[in-house]
């Protein structure tokens, strides 16, 4: 769990320097603003289908990605905007994908739930719950087969844990010693079903012990704690070629999707308000200010930069044309 932050000033107080603090805050804010704009665009009818926002969970993707190398891989489920952006995808092309436009990452053919960016080793958003866990094991298998030292981070929700593929994947990854870090974002609800209504064992990290996988739990709202725990797992996985399981205790501030805007049927207002006090962005900002690593002016500059980039992403998506009709029939098969 999260360490108590000592009341000291200066870089050592947070264990991060100003540059890193700035980057973490920037990347989390970028996702937050991106999601807020995506929600606006959805309300305006510019984004269709299902739209699942990552608001509240930003620390997980940003903290985890901050300890990865560029040649490491990430893969996610349908709530994938944050993971894809954190891995380095261009927000303009992600927004264009949400808008179903030609300049989207997948030329508008994937949409919100299927973001892929090969240029940053992002292996996609996959929308059948649990199905991408074996894919992550396969990517790790390929890394091992080719004797490389990259790792795969696989983000998934608590909703994937009761699926057979979670258990099949953990078993295969442990059995064959595959370099994959299974990172569960436990936001306590699979759509509207709380973990205690879905899991006989709600301490998800404990499932890893059954398979002999080093497993731990971390405060999913504390980006620095995530850096520490995931960083440890990445180092071990890279060195020993063994999988890891991490359960991040997090919370989504919005509903399951835009069709569940309030998320109020299955959880209380009081609970949501209480969890919002753990806002990962506010927490990092306050701690960095308090420690004197960042100034108010620094924070304002970060906010301005993020707002500019997201405004630019929306303008880019708006300006991008719809994919031409021919795209219906391209990419069904890879041609020789």
């Amino acid at each position: 769990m999260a360490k108590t932050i000592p009341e000291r000033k200066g870089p050592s107080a947070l264990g991060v320097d100003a540059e890193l603090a700035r980057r973490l805050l920037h990347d989390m804010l970028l996702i937050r603003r991106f999601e807020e704009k995506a929600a606006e665009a959805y309300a305006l009818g510019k984004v269709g289908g299902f739209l699942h926002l990552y608001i509240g969970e930003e620390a997980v993707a940003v903290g985890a990605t901050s300890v990865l190398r560029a040649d490491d891989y990430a893969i996610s489920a349908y709530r994938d905007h944050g993971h894809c952006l954190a891995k380095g995808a261009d927000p303009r092309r992600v927004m264009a994908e949400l808008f179903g436009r030609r300049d989207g990452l997948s030329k508008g053919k994937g949409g919100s739930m299927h973001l892929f960016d090969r240029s940053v080793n992002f292996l996609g958003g996959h929308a059948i719950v649990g199905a991408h866990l074996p894919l992550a094991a396969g990517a790790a298998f390929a890394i091992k087969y080719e004797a490389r030292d990259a790792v795969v981070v696989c983000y998934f929700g608590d909703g994937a844990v009761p699926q057979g593929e979670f258990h099949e994947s953990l078993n295969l990854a442990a059995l064959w010693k595959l370099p994959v870090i299974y990172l569960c974002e436990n936001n306590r609800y699979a759509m509207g079903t709380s973990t205690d209504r879905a899991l006989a064992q709600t301490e998800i990290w404990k499932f890893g012990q059954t398979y002999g996988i080093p497993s731990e739990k971390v405060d999913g709202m504390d980006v620095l704690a995530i850096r520490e725990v995931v960083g440890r797992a990445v180092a071990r996985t890279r060195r020993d070629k063994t999988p890891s399981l991490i359960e991040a205790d997090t919370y989504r501030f919005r509903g399951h999707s835009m069709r569940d805007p309030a998320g109020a049927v299955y959880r209380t207002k009081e609970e949501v308000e209480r969890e919002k006090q753990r806002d990962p962005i506010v927490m990092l900002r306050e701690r960095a200010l308090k420690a004197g690593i960042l100034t108010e002016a620094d924070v304002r500059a970060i906010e301005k930069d993020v707002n500019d980039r997201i405004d630019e992403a929306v303008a880019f998506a708006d300006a991008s044309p719809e994919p031409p009709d021919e795209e219906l029939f391209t990419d069904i098969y890879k041609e020789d």
Partner: protein
Amino acid sequence: MAVMTYREALNLALREEMRRDPRVFVMGEEVGLYEGAYKVTQGLLKEFGPARVVDTPIAESGFTGLGIGAAMLGLRPVVEMMTFNFALLALDQIVNSAAKMCYMSGGQYNVPLVIRGPGGPAAQLAAQHSQSMETYFYHVPGLKVVRPTTPMDAKGLLKSAIRDDNPVIFIEAETLYPVKGEVPEDPDFVIPLGQAIVRREGTDVTVIAYMGMMYRSMEAADELAKEGISVELVDPRTLRPMDVDTIIGSVRKTHRVVVVEAGAGFAGMGSEISAFVTEHAFDDLDAPVERVTGANAPMPYARNLEKLKTPSKDKIAAAIRRVCNANGS
């Protein structure tokens, strides 16, 4: 040319492709130490070692998905289904992950994966282990589906499937593994996917069949030749993409069509072939297209009932006679 069994032809194809490309590996239940439930992978562990001949636990969805993930990073897995019936456990991975990856990613990630193993009617294996499985796959854009009838096709088509950059469903037949035939030993011999073959030339009627039904139709054609009916036999070999041109070319020559399939007829391969023959060559037809299909029932165990389930030579011959005697011309 060498004479070998269908099983040996598959084994040779695997060996040649593994020697040719280090990215090719085989994976599945009992493929290594046990040398394959049907011995298709016999000797591979010894030649290529456990890194490339990977025994899996019983977890079809898990290891199929693992193969797909490995293929996304550029490996070329050949995943064995001990029998294709078990592929239903991996149907989500095949349909939602493998088939759609290229499309959903706008062409960024493709899945060069072969899933192979025996399917179709077998000997008294009853309802869960004896059924035609191709129907579940050929409906899906993004997949290719192969059913190789002869040892030569087994080798040439499996090599093409392994070299293909897309997911290929390659369904063999338990009953055909011991069948012998001539097979080119040239490691560069391949048969392109999507090419049908005319197995017997004839002038009166086109019979379209594959796998066991092709052999049975051949026997029916021999019998009918004595009655003066000249049967042309066309084997599609690849069901998706289907070689429509070869089939239509034969129909334009004979003007009469019988489609034979082992699986249940409702929405089967015969329905699709019948539909495109009607669409492309209606004016060339002298009689309605006739289908001879497996009964619309699960596969029974009892020997007598099992025999009734799958089209017999006599049933096929009767359909051909009916079509030839139809008075349309």
